[in-house]
């Protein structure tokens, strides 16, 4: 069998094998059960709470959870703005890089605090090492935020009636120290042992074999890359992210980094199964996610391995597949695999340039972000899926003529309204943003000529991709887009803010309201949610919402481009 395909099977099999025990471990952490790492982490957590003056045992209701989350996120945003606009004179700046302009700092701060990591700057020239370090902090704690709030929803789904759902700070610190930290240390160690730089020295200059001068950017790359992969952050140390041979030096590191993308998002599903003692429900959800993921993955690999038809017509061999924007050490299949991984999970790191991929692969990456819950971002991916479950329960309930119930709680008008608003918010943000930018561009193509690196359908896809990526809190890009302008910085910044916090507030509100309702034990009349039939129902709801909302836009972009190349 083709070694490129074998590599992909290896990566997927490994991540499933690792995610199952990790899910159990995460479940134990949120159930406050003992684990073998307690000896290290109990004292560490105690220290965190003592220094912060927080009582981790104080129970909170769903509103208090949200207030705590939003407050600490505001603090992060303010601190981030301060650092990014003052980097030039602050310490740890050996390459003398400049501070950011206000609009770029706004975009970058929002981007990293919301776990998006959309980058309108390039790491080598746009950030000091202090800037990189502070962004790395957001990579840890914005991922911790997602995991913590997902734990709150797990607590709310338990078989009981309760107003209080644990303590937000406690979940948050446990997520950061007991889940993200040990995994990041393991991944960073693998990277430094395989050729990724970890230094505080500035650029090095060498003379190449042909006698030219070449400058080489260095930095604390390994520490940064580990958490950007694990926390579905995705913001690279270098401009081209993990395509850069220092950020991702070999096929082996590529395996490690690719597995890191999927590990926690997948484990969260199994964690839910453990916390609620509903393993069958976890496997049903996992099954739906996996089928959706494979439907996006398989055609993408096929198209990338077949190469660009326009180049085939020039008489060039395409045995390697489409190689524009790709690295030889990964090959086209592993690049396509990464592309679908990173867009399904809201990670947004890349190991090949998505802008240069064949048209339909471009479409599948877009679809991954438009659906945004096939595994999804750490924690928040499950919240997105939760919304679709609520919708599916309601529709199924209507179809069979029963009161819709999920895990023993009646779903009523208020919850449905919230679920509908959240489900429609994502298409709204994407389509309005794309429509606005297209309108501006079409009205004055000369003034906005710097926006698009490619003409025609592909240019439209670049704008569509940018707003989709912002709204999915993904962060990857069709990077040909000239996006460091006030319009893109502010528009994408606002989209990222709305698309991060509303889809957290919505599901937490629904779960919180449901938790306080009376628990009705399962009976023969209950709609079973852990069956293949229900799984199919959820899948249908996801597919219909995505198709109705996005098909017209996709037709104008990637689909039109595909047929123009034929």
């Amino acid at each position, binding site marked *: 069998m083709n070694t490129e395909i074998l590599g992909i099977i290896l990566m997927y099999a490994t991540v499933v094998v690792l995610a199952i025990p990790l899910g159990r471990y995460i479940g134990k952490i949120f159930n406050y059960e003992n684990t073998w790492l307690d000896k290290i982490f109990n004292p560490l957590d105690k220290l965190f709470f003592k220094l912060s003056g927080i009582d981790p045992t104080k129970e909170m209701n769903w509103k208090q959870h949200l207030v705590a989350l939003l407050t600490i996120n505001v603090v992060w945003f303010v601190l981030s703005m301060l650092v990014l606009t003052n980097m030039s004179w602050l310490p740890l700046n050996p390459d003398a890089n400049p501070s950011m302009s206000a609009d770029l700092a706004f975009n970058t701060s929002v981007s990293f605090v919301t776990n998006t990591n959309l980058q309108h700057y390039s790491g080598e020239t746009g950030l000091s090492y202090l800037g990189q370090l502070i962004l790395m902090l957001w990579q840890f704690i914005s991922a911790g935020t997602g995991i913590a709030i997902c734990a709150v929803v797990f607590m709310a789904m338990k078989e009981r009636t309760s107003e209080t759902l644990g303590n937000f700070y406690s979940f948050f610190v446990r997520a950061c120290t007991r889940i993200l930290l040990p995994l990041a240390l393991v991944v960073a160690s693998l990277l430094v042992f395989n*050729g990724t730089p970890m230094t505080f020295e500035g650029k090095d200059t060498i003379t190449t074999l042909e006698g030219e001068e070449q400058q080489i950017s260095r930095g604390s790359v390994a520490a940064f890359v580990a958490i950007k992969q694990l926390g579905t952050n995705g913001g690279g140390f270098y401009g081209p992210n993990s395509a850069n041979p220092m950020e991702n030096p070999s096929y082996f590191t590529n395996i490690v980094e690719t597995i890191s993308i999927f590990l926690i998002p997948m484990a969260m599903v199994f964690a839910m199964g453990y916390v609620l003692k509903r393993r069958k429900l976890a496997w049903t959800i996992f099954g739906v996610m996996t089928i959706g993921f494979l439907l996006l993955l398989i055609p993408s690999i096929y198209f990338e391995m077949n190469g660009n038809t*326009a180049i085939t017509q020039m008489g060039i061999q395409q045995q390697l597949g*489409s190689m524009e924007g790709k690295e030889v050490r990964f090959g086209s299949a592993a690049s396509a695999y990464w592309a679908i991984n990173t867009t399904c999970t809201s990670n947004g790191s890349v190991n090949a340039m998505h802008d240069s991929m064949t048209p339909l692969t471009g479409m599948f990456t877009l679809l991954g972000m438009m659906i945004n819950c096939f595994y999804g971002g750490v924690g928040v991916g499950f919240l997105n899926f939760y919304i679709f479950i609520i919708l599916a329960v309601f529709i199924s309930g209507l179809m069979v003529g029963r009161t819709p119930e999920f895990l023993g709680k009646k779903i009523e008008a208020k919850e449905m309204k919230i679920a509908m608003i959240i489900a429609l918010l994502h298409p709204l943000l994407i389509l309005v943003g794309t429509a606005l930018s297209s309108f501006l561009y079409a009205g004055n193509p000369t003034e906005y000529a710097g926006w698009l690196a490619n003409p025609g359908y592909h240019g439209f896809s670049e704008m569509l991709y940018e707003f989709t990526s912002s709204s999915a809190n993904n962060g990857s890009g069709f990077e040909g887009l000239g996006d460091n302008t006030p319009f893109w910085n502010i528009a994408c910044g606002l989209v990222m803010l709305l698309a991060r916090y509303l889809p957290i507030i919505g599901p937490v509100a629904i779960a919180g309201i449901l938790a306080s309702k009376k628990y009705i034990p399962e009976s023969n009349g209950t709609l079973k949610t852990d069956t293949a039939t229900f799984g199919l129902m959820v899948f249908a709801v996801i597919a219909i919402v995505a198709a109705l909302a996005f098909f017209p836009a996709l037709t104008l972009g990637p689909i039109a481009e595909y047929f123009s190349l034929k």
Partner: protein
Amino acid sequence: MKNNIIPAIRLTLVCLVFFCGIYTLTVYGISKLAPEDSSFKKSESGFYENVGQSFTSDKYFHSRPSAVGYNAAGSGGSNKGPSNPDYLAEVQARIDTFLVHNPDIKKDEIPSDLVTASGSGIDPHISVQAAKVQVKRIAKVRNISETTIHQIIEQQSEKSLLGLFGTEKINVLKLNLKLDQLTTTLKQ
């Protein structure tokens, strides 16, 4: 909100010290334990083998086209779409240039990595086929037999991981260093 601000600020500062400081320094410490040949360091030749270099002279194996001129302090790809006419013209020009430099090669022998720009612009590798199509030119310029050069390619090609996973490839810098070494020994 009010009750949350002070704890939020304090918790942020604790996280700042821990994740920016202690975590980073731990990874830094671990990096010091890595053996010489597997960490990011200059090799004996004084080069970074992970970082691709531009090779355009006829006596060396050419590296892949780069959108950033092999600038390792501003790496990046072309971000050209597959249907962009300017881009396709550029690819055509690369094909023509290649055929001028390698007149013995037919167009359908050129692998796509030699006429497309990499994602990073500093891709250190080319495919094995991309090395093989350059052998005739180098043999002529350097006046060495083709068999010898094919041997070096065989020697230098990096098999897929465990022979099972991923691509086969060649590090262009290492290959060219070997080539220079060989020419020096032949002269002596």
